[in-house]
């Protein structure tokens, strides 16, 4: 019952973002588990969408569908966003804690479920001529998500509008930097591993 109440609150956030995100932070109404449930639900929605969206708008090659890709395209960017945003805002006097960032980002993703699921059902009965309606709804979902993310970031860190926009853009840049560093790290590790392995081979062949 309490979980349901918390879940209903996420709807309140989606429709009344200013009020919602404020209470989220200062009334402790945001719950980490709800944010994570939303993240999971978004992933599932996207997987379903790839598989079951109507043929007219579905350009996925059925043999190339892979649910793990959604982790790569949703869960990984989500975590990257939170880490990048947290790293950045600590330097830019943001007030948000890491947990609050995760919660706000999670709650902001709700529109993706709210619109994508009905849209997926709709796409099965529309024709090519009506497909633009489907794409319109899709972009509406994206805009709504970005809008919520914007309000969320602004409220969590107590920023001004321009500073929020700057922060969001910089966060994207930082995400790129993190990916770059990650790849660099992995490639170096790989080289070290192969180096050690070569030495081991050399020694074992000599012995």
């Amino acid at each position, binding site marked *: 019952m309490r979980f349901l109440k918390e879940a209903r609150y996420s709807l309140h956030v989606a429709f009344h973002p200013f009020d919602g995100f404020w209470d989220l932070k200062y009334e402790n109404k945001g719950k980490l588990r709800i944010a994570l449930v939303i993240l999971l639900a978004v992933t599932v929605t996207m997987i379903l969408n790839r598989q079951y969206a109507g*043929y*007219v708008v579905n350009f996925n090659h059925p043999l190339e569908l892979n649910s793990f890709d959604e982790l790569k395209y949703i869960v990984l960017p989500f975590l990257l966003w939170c880490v990048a945003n947290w790293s950045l805002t600590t330097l830019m006097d943001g007030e948000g804690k890491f947990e609050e960032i995760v919660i706000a980002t999670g709650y902001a993703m709700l529109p993706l479920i709210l619109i994508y699921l009905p849209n997926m059902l709709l796409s099965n*009965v529309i*024709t*090519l*001529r009506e497909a633009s309606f489907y794409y319109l709804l899709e972009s509406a979902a994206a805009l709504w998500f970005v809008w919520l993310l914007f309000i969320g970031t602004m409220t969590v860190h107590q920023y001004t509008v321009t500073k929020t926009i700057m922060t969001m853009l910089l966060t994207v840049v930082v995400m790129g930097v993190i990916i770059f560093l990650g790849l660099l790290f992995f490639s170096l590790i790989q080289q070290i591993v192969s180096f050690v392995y070569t030495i081991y081979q050399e020694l074992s062949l000599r012995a």
Partner: protein
Amino acid sequence: MKIKRAILLLAAVLLFAGLSPKLAHASPYEGYTYSYWGETVHSPIAYLPSKTITGQNLGIGPWRSPADIFAALDGHLYVLDSGNGRIVVLDSEWKVVRQMKEFQNNGKQDGFNNPEGLFVTESGHIFVADTENRRVVELDSSGAFVREISAPKSEVISSNFEYFPRKVIVDKAGRIYVVARGVFEGIIEFDSEGGFTGFMGTNRVQFDPVDLFWKTVSTKEQREKLIRFVPIEFNNVDVDLDGFIFTTTADKQTFAPVKRLNPSGIDVIRINGNIGPVGDLSRNRSAFIDIDVSGNGVYRTLDSTRGRIFTYNEDGNLLYVFGQLGNQQGTFKNPVAIESSGNRVFVLDRDQGRITEFAATKFGSLVNEANGLYSIGKHDDAAKLWKEVLRLDANYEMAYIGIGKSMLRQGEYKQAMTFLKLGNDREYYSKALTKYRREYMREHFGIYMTVLIPLILVVIAVRRSMRLRKGELKKDAVSQGG
């Protein structure tokens, strides 16, 4: 006991299966097509080599670097034996009908010098692009000289213009089109009198942004050393029965190597799928060197990269692929020209000096026939043949589309949707869906409404009663508090 016998039987069967030779592949190449997703898909072989013909076979001495062939409407095959400067005419039984080597030009003995192109009109007049002699020669059907058309003269052509005609075609109105070496302006067009009228169908200049970037940052000296942006020259032409001119461009960069030019020189080729007629979809792209138009808008292109023949229908859908470079019979060393007549295809190999004749297999002729019916709009007749095609090749997307369209016409919308989906035709799938949706709603609207309206009423009633109870509770609370 039973088990033992069964095992023995199984062992015997396995032994025989192991001993019996593997099925021999009668073809030196594999059949394949590309799916909607651009993946290679195995396909039955549409054409198999049935015969190879060389000059020695015919007893007229070997052909020396033959450059072109032409299959005339009467079934005769004309071979342009460039190295020997002669034209050899063969009938459909592969007997030599005639050889033309020399002719009387204004009382003088004249001949060809390394000609590269050949065309025969309906009336049997032979046009030869006599490359090194820098002229186009017209002979009548007996091989007698009629006239020669030399370099175009016009103010738009610069005085140091070097004219080397390579290919020639003549349309029904007698206009002569010449593809010449190093001419980037397009096809040279002459009127029936042999007077120059202009260029047509110029290729667009290709450039890519990277080149453009380097060009802007480089100095003037560097710029002069860079390759200039010039349009690509055509390398071959053919004309179809309606007078449209098909051209090919041997450029591995372009995504429009095949053009279908209308009389005013505008490209009107139809590309229905998401992949146009570009040959192989690999990094090392195909380079088309000849094109042949057969009936019903079907055209075949000859690729010099891998020696393959790609056959497309009028919508630009790939029908089948055959041929390959190699040393076996049915493969080529240096294929240069392609022609077709009925269900037979001829490919001329320049280095080997021979013609390979291909005959359609059961699959090939089924596809040809089905596509023929399909292109003239006889979808229902075509559907029967497409079903046969599917029995031989369940991956054949065109067949699914063909059957789907036929079902759409017959009003079987649901089934049409299934087939059109298998054939990946979203446009027609969408049409079928529109019809199916309407039909479905007409049948089921009543049921849905009879369920929906009471449901809405119940929801409204429940909500109202809940609200009433809440109101009473509040009232109670207020009265108790007061």
